[in-house]
């Protein structure tokens, strides 16, 4: 190999391209979805109260259809509250606070994916897929967690509610977030087939 003398010279001759920083490699898909994902991240944070209401509405639907319980959703000033029970009466309400919502877990994924889409990359579809999978895991698990809490409250009373909310739900969300992270990385890291990115060592 001929030794290059410019400050950015190197063995790029193997890869048959010459370029410097800011080579403008962002794909069209990246230019569209990068800002969209960054905006989504911002919306998830700024509009998390609205998101929580929608999330609890979805949970109420699941409780009605999976558990066959009657539900009532109230839009509290700080958090939406879900009441569930039978015709005989409703149990204590479950308030969905910001810390219990999947919004704040999805926001970092949206931020990261938006950045990566703008960063480049010749694999935007893969990044979007990774985000979709991670987001789906987080949303589905949190809905499952909320349903589980209602179910345990209904069957086991206050103790069931406490254990499901404090322990089971937390562990479940931790496992889900871990799985989402690892799957996200796995999808992004998968060896390229035909997107032109350099093969990894």
């Amino acid at each position, binding site marked *: 190999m001929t030794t290059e003398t410019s400050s950015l010279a190197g*063995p790029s001759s193997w890869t048959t391209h010459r370029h410097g920083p800011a080579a403008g490699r962002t794909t069209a898909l990246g230019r569209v979805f990068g800002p969209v994902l960054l905006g989504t991240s911002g919306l998830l944070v700024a509009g998390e109260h609205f998101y929580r209401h929608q999330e609890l509405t979805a949970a109420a639907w699941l409780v009605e259809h999976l558990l066959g319980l009657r539900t009532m959703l109230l839009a509290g000033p700080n958090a939406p509250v879900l009441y569930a029970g039978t015709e005989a009466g409703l149990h204590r309400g479950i308030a969905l606070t910001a810390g219990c919502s999947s919004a704040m877990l999805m926001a970092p994924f949206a931020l990261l994916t938006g950045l990566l889409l703008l960063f480049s990359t010749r694999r935007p579809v893969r990044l979007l897929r990774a985000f979709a999978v991670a987001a789906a895991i987080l949303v589905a698990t949190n809905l499952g967690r909320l349903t589980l809490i209602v179910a345990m409250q209904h069957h086991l009373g206050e103790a069931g509610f406490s254990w499901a909310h404090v322990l089971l739900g937390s562990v479940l969300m931790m496992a889900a977030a871990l799985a989402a992270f*690892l799957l996200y990385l796995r999808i992004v890291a998968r060896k390229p087939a035909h997107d032109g990115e350099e093969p990894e060592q």
Partner: protein
Amino acid sequence: MTLLDTSISLSFVLGVSFLAYVAVIVRNYLRARPRPAGDPTGFDWHFFIPCRDEEAVIGATLDHLDRYFPQATVWVVDDHSTDGTAELVRARERAGWPVNLVSRRLPEARTGKGDALNAAYQAMNADPWSGTDPERVIVCVLDADGRPSPNMFEVCAGDAYFGDPRIGAVQVEVRMSNRDVTTPLPARGRIANRCARLLARLQDLEFRGPISAMQITRRRTGTVNVGGNGQLTRLAALDSIGLDDGRPWGRALLEDFELGLRLMLAGWRNGYTTDAWVDQEALWNLRQLLTQRVRWAQGSMQCARYMRSIWGSREFTTLGFLEVLYFMAQPWLQLVGLVAYLVPILAFSYNAATYPRFTLDFLQHGGAPLLLIYLLIGVGEFALWGPLYRRRCEPGIPLRAALGYGLALALYAAATYVVAVRAFWRILRRKDSWHKTARTAPPPHVDPIDLIDLGDPLGPVDLAHLADRSAAAGRGSY
């Protein structure tokens, strides 16, 4: 959304992302296998050893190199030493050893390790031999107390390393030469010696455990970086980033990390191996260690300016970009994490004090096991390195000791939060000059007790003070 809500969410995200990172690097660490060695005779090998007052160790290092690497040429950069460093080198030069002394004198000297290495690079290029094909010339940067393993050239000449023409640099594993010293501080009591021994062992564990695992993972992301000791670079790679101005090494506090980034930006790949290693001295003093780590953290923060270049570079894969981003964000994330972790803990403590019955009810209904799980994970993700270290590096140590080292590593890692805060504070105050880390080994003719007593008082405050004086006099230091 309240501060508490934000902190809970942030701490959860930071905690889980770190756990995922640990899971990934442990997996790759356990899967790493030795790679075939190569023929070192196809390369010309050179050592660069920057020295400033290194008479305590440089003689023994040169003897080691002469014994195990007689084919190599050594370039010792004397950065205006005031002790007998230069004389020790000259004596060997006169005796016909392949050793060259590159002298730097004030006011040009003591401007940083990068400058010292650049001086060696310029001296080597000015040498008549320099007509050799730079593709076949390898430069190894060594600390004055560095002891490379005898197989280093064979390993690095292998097809996975310099046998592959795309590889620009290879970092070998770093080990602590004094990890088995039983009485590191002879003048001190048992507890001081136990603490010093533990500190040395933890540094060995850290370099051969988590740091090694990170580097092994970077082989997959294409973002292996190089350190300041046991750093081998192809001359053609150095030329590609430094031939114009004769300065391949930059002036960042982490000049080694900066070099690695610049090589990657220039299209070179870097390798990492645990098949060869370099032994260096561990620090026996916690204050010195913290000072060293603050410098590293500050250096890492300084390298944030490269993110823009990395952002636009085609030489980084998506995953590689992600890895570099995560690594360079670490000190900043620790600052954020400090707040994010502390707020929920403080809120819980406040509630426990103000509403004890409510807190007790919470603990009795799942709170206690949940906190236990958090504690187990928080400690476990560090403690697991003890048994892993025993399994892969030091099978001779008892399992109980390995578990103890792992637990101690969790405390050791907690110190990084202090480090991040101090590094950030220094950046805010625009302080970026440092005194070099003091050696723990005594010079051959000096009573070791006296030397250690002299070295110990150099804590962060004193070092910063010295650095300030040095900077005021127009001289940086490393």
